[in-house]
């Protein structure tokens, strides 16, 4: 599904916004990578993106940018994003400052917990 016409909800006063602001000061290049990945994400069909949950897609979906299969081998900052097709919104729900590497399996479980909670919250 193409989501270019959806609204991006700004994370100003949310915990995610706080993490992003702190990262932007401490490590600007690392911050820009998931933001840049999100810019590409909103321009492509969601079928081509990495979905965290639900597996078959639905009214709301959670994606990971950059995709997990890249981060597994190249640890970096990553964003979990909720796409709500009903409300036509795109919202950052969590930012991993350093995803991937040796602890990736535990982080993947955490990502799924975030995704489940974000879907329950719709």
């Amino acid at each position, binding site marked *: 599904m193409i*989501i*270019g*016409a*959806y*609204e*991006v*909800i*700004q*994370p*100003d006063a949310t915990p995610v916004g706080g993490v*992003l*602001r702190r990262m*932007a*000061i401490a490590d*600007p*290049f690392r*911050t*820009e990578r998931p*933001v*840049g990945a*999100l*810019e*590409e994400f*909103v*321009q492509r069909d969601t079928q081509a993106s990495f979905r965290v949950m639900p597996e078959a897609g639905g009214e709301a979906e959670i994606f990971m940018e950059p995709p997990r299969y890249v981060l597994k081998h190249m640890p970096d900052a990553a964003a979990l994003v909720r796409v709500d097709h009903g409300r036509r919104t*795109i919202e950052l729900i969590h930012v991993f400052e350093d995803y991937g590497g040796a602890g990736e399996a535990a982080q993947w479980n955490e990502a799924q917990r975030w995704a489940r909670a974000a879907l329950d919250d719709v």
Partner: protein
Amino acid sequence: MSKARSNNIVPKAVAGIRALRERLAEEAPGYGAAVRFERDAEAFCQAVRGELRKRRKQKKVDQQELGALVGLTQSAISRIERSEGDIGLKSIYRYARALGLQPVVTFTPSVDDLLGDVAGEAGEVGQLGRELQQVADHFTGEQAKLMQSLSEDVAKLIASVADAARQARSS
């Protein structure tokens, strides 16, 4: 390149991500600099892709023929020429050699650094000029004091000559 981008129409979602960037850059100037740096890096990759495309066309080789020369499909060649993001050095090498070209790597000081050096030297010249002006101002002041002193001495001399003349006439 997407159709929307080629028409310079920014989709709402892209505008939203750019607004997020701007908000972060307002609070973290270093982030704004990182965004510009990454944009320049992307522009550099696009310039290299454009150069490869231009050279292929100059040689009058189509994408299919070039792909056959380097063992890639036409769509892979198209991606090299049109995609966004990083471009592999091996891709550049294979592409160039297939066109009978030899890639050469050269690094030069960046324009920003050169401008910074020029600005630094201009600053030094400016400082030297200010110091020279201070010296000139100093001497101008001393010259004025000297002229004042001389004027006073000459005035005293004229007065004493006038006194002497009056005394001579009265006697």
